[in-house]
């Protein structure tokens, strides 16, 4: 479960002054749901997700992730979260197996559990072929699979995924989307940010449109279509944000 209440993050910049990267955002994601966070580059998606993963401290507002407060219990939040972003890379000189084991240990798992989880994740993600190869030597798609395994090794209740298909080819992206659906099937709470409109159409139960740090619209795909009209997600997005607000 993710519950966000009027969450705000203000950055101060010498040239631009105070920047409200996330502005009074409130949302709720239940277990077994995928919440799609849609927005252009710089809309505030990554900042919001970093706040939920406790990498950043909020300026005001609150959020509870898996029942833990992000301000007061950041370590417990991180223990319950699997965070995967385009900016979270892997160590090139470690093998995929060593990477999974490292993050398993960091998340407090014992060696026997790590071995069992590695085997299971390698089966599910079809990783056996490259499990013992150094990350620097494998393809982008394989790296992303290793990243997912790293994210899930401690079996978190909540998944925070920030543009996980960025830079991937069609086949690798499809594999990721399939895996996210499987996570929903297992009752995990998923928040998924992207700027690819078609992904949210296919994947998400609830869609939140974020622009200039504010949540402009929220609802199911059909609900948003009824509200804003339009035939596809792109048209809905433009209606919700307002064409004059787009660069």
């Amino acid at each position, binding site marked *: 479960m993710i519950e966000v209440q009027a969450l705000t993050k203000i950055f101060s910049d010498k040239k631009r002054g105070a920047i409200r990267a996330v502005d009074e955002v409130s949302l709720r994601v239940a277990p077994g749901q995928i919440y799609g966070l849609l927005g252009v580059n710089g809309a505030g998606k990554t900042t919001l997700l970093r706040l939920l993963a406790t990498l*950043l401290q909020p300026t005001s507002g609150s959020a509870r992730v898996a029942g833990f407060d992000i301000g007061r219990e950041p370590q*417990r939040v*991180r223990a319950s979260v699997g965070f995967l972003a385009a900016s979270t890379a892997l160590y090139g000189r*470690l093998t995929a197996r*060593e990477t999974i084991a490292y993050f398993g240990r*960091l998340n407090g798992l014992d060696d026997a559990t790590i071995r069992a989880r590695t085997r299971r994740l390698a089966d599910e993600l079809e990783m056996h072929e490259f499990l013992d190869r150094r990350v620097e030597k494998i393809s982008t798609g394989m790296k992303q699979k290793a990243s997912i395994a790293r994210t899930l090794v401690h079996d978190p209740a909540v998944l925070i995924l920030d543009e996980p298909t960025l830079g991937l080819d069609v086949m690798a992206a499809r594999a990721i989307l399939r895996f996210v659906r499987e996570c929903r099937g297992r009752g995990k709470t998923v928040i998924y940010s992207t700027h690819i409109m078609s992904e949210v159409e296919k994947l998400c139960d609830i869609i939140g449109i974020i622009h200039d740090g504010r949540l402009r619209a929220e609802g199911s795909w059909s609900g948003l279509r009824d509200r804003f009209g339009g035939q596809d997600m792109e048209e809905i997005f433009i209606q919700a944000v307002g064409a004059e607000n787009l660069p």
Partner: protein
Amino acid sequence: MIFRHIMTVYGKELRDSLRDRRTLMSMFVVPMFLVPALTLSIGRISMSAVTRAREETPKVMLLGGGDSPAIVAALKQSPKFKIVPASDDYQQLISDKKVRAAIRLPDGFEAGLKSGAVQQVTLYYYEGELKSGFAAGNLERFFNDLRDRTVAASLAAHGLPASLVKPFTVGRENVAPPEKVGGNEFGGFVPYLIILLCFTGAIYPAIDLTAGEKERGTMETLLCSQVGRVEIVLGKFFMVLTSSLCAMVFSLMSMAATFIVTGVAMGRGAPAIAAAAKAQAARATLPTIDPLGIFGVLAMVLPAAVLFSALLLTISLFAKSAKEAQSYVTPLVFLVILPAVIGILPGIELDARLALVPLLNLSLVCREMMSGVWHWHYIALIFASTCVYAGVALALCVRMFNREEVIFRV
């Protein structure tokens, strides 16, 4: 804070670093092989150059001397020179290394020696040129010998003893024990080297584990695990410290091995130099270093290594990229060298005020320890103050790790 988490981070960083060619280069290859190879090569080349220069019979030009046939004949008979005919462009010939030196005898030199007139023989040579220097030295010895013989003959002719002009000699006798001699000679240099090696050994891993990780995107991956920032900092810090100490220990080991090998090579390769060294050793006390002093230096350098590691981590963490971190760290090398060099300078003595100046205090106390002087109150003060500085640097590093504008600085 969970110690197991610190060790997990440290273990991963160690494994990662041992697979990194650049780290292996800075930790093992450069100190273990490159430094001794360079030292040995330079030593061998310079030794062979000196030997060749000594073995050469230098061409010497004689200017004047037409009215001093006996001295000219003695010069021509000497196996130490090859006398060449006089020429007006002797200075140019010396500069062009066609002639190594020239000697000008005054008019009526031989007659002047007999009459007791004061005369001047002028020697021309090229300062800083090895072979020219050897030729000038040989000529100087020849004429000093001639002067001594002339004086002795003159005294004998008047029935006077040779001791008349040399009634006594002055002899030196060293009372300093060998380790004090060694401490004074090397005591400043060894700590300087250790401090510098400690610092340079920490540079690459400190940059790679902070700014490098930010640049590669692995820092964010690490921060989203449940491990606390303090544990991450300490794990990385121990890795940088390991690298710093490894670089220092391996460098010292390889330097010791190089000195031994160089000594053996000198003994075999250049008998003349070896004989000269033996003769000097017989005359004076051969310098040694107090082994306890070396252990003392290593113990004192440990908090300094902690200080360096924490400081470099903090500065590198602030940078957005490894390149930016390098530009911050490079000027620091001079800040480290300066106090270490001041510690070598003669006349600078350790006192309570200097005992609180970071690095300079270390350099001074190490020099004392190497020569067997143990001022325990200063040693305690310096150790404690360096520990405090190191603790402050480490606390600063942890604080920086907790600042999101530093971690996510783009």
